[in-house]
């Protein structure tokens, strides 16, 4: 466990030194804060505009941060040959993989906390209200990034950094369209096609589970039971991806 925590701490420090991560966080902060300035154009919908736009920015920048931080973790270590030094010092591949994942999560959560804090201050300053539903949306969004990080890390055990980043962005987009596979499967009567689509529906992540943004902005409430189910889904999916990554990484020649 100590090895995992040490690797996680190192990964986190390395991520903080990454200029791209800092630039993305600053960009997000400026973009979120600037939503305050154009709301005067629609006086009756100010809060909706701030919430919609800010949550969209956090989701987009959060996705980029996750993909960029996680996509390069293993390929960079392999390219620099630092991985051989670490693995020769009583650190198992499993500890290394989980340590890297944990370190990436530290960095992702840190950036989420910064972006969320700016956003929450902004809506509090605007409406003098503290909307718990917004916090729930942010929690679900964070869980979405945990899943995305686990997928990107899993792929990074066998692929290059560039491939991981492109794959991560694509899986994020596809993950938001997974529901269509189910609707599509209902249209087919042929068992083969139906089974294929349902298999894809099960295997691919369903990121729409984590998306309650539009509903809460329009006044819906997210029950705690739903929150629990989706967090369990995210946790299980991440465990699957890490186990797969572990299988790939164990086979990989370094």
């Amino acid at each position: 466990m100590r090895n995992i925590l040490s690797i996680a701490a190192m990964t986190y420090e390395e991520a903080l030194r990454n200029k791209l991560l800092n630039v993305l966080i600053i960009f997000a902060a400026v973009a979120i804060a600037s939503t305050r300035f154009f709301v005067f154009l629609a006086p009756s919908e100010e809060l909706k505009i701030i919430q919609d736009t800010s949550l969209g920015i956090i989701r987009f920048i959060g996705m980029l941060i996750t993909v960029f931080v996680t996509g390069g973790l293993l390929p960079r270590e392999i390219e620099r040959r630092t991985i051989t030094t670490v693995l020769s010092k009583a650190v198992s591949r499993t500890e290394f993989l989980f340590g890297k994942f944990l370190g990436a999560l530290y960095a992702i959560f840190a950036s989420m906390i910064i972006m969320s804090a700016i956003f929450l201050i902004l809506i509090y300053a605007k409406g003098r209200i503290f909307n718990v539903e917004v916090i729930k949306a942010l929690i679900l969004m964070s869980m979405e990034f945990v899943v995305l990080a686990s997928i990107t890390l899993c792929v990074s055990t066998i692929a290059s950094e560039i491939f991981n980043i492109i794959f991560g962005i694509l899986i994020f987009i596809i993950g938001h369209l997974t529901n269509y596979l189910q609707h599509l499967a209902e249209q087919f009567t042929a068992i083969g096609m139906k089974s294929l689509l349902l298999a894809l529906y099960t295997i691919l992540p369903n990121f729409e589970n984590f998306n309650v943004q539009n509903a809460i902005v329009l006044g819906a409430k997210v029950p705690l039971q739903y929150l629990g189910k989706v967090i369990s889904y995210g946790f299980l999916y991440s465990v699957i991806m890490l186990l797969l990554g572990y299988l790939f990484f164990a086979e990989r020649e370094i």
Partner: protein
Amino acid sequence: MFFYTPRIHKYIISGIIAGLFIVILVLQASINYSRVTEDLVESMIIMPGEFVTNFVIGGFRGIAVDLLWLRIDEMWHTGKWFDIIPLLRAITWMQPHFLEAWELGAWHLAYNCYAYAESAGLPNKEKYIDEGVKFMKEGLARNRNVYDLWFNLGWIYYHKLKNYDEGIKYFRAATRVKHPSYIDRLIAHAYRKKGDIESEYKEWQRCLTVFTDDKYHIDIVKTHLEKAKEKLIAAGKLGVNDK
């Protein structure tokens, strides 16, 4: 254990992964059910071939809607009344639960476009009221569990078309979900405007049984109840001592 080879280890891990996928499948079905029952689905209204739109906009349709809303504001101030309608429709496609868009669209068609057509001497000005009603009914089909659109449709019938029967029908539907007290009172007013004093009197009596904690509501209802009673007595339909 001597028989625990790396290959068996791999098989066990693969088995765990397969098992977890089955759990995920069950969990996903439960999540899908919750999303529908808790009204957390904000699917776009799109035609089957148009899912590309969803692909492009993805999770950022809220921003797209806000930008369109801002554009409507700009058009409003520059007097482009008829150009606003397609934008409003686009908004309702992307966020069908955005009630203000349905309300604004229907009101704009039934009131503003009608008034403009009337002042400009355009033929068939009534079609704008029909369009407004149609637009609101479309929104109503997707937002049946909130009072807003039931009330607003009732209002168009009541205020614009003077069709009190239809107005009453939609106001009454609005009272079946959580609603403010003035809708109950509007039903009685609609009966009054229709000239049906007996139904009006019964409606005011019913109003006394709802929102009993709201002193403002009860005071107004009592005043109107007295007036309706006087009218009924004058018409000989009620005795002085009758309740």
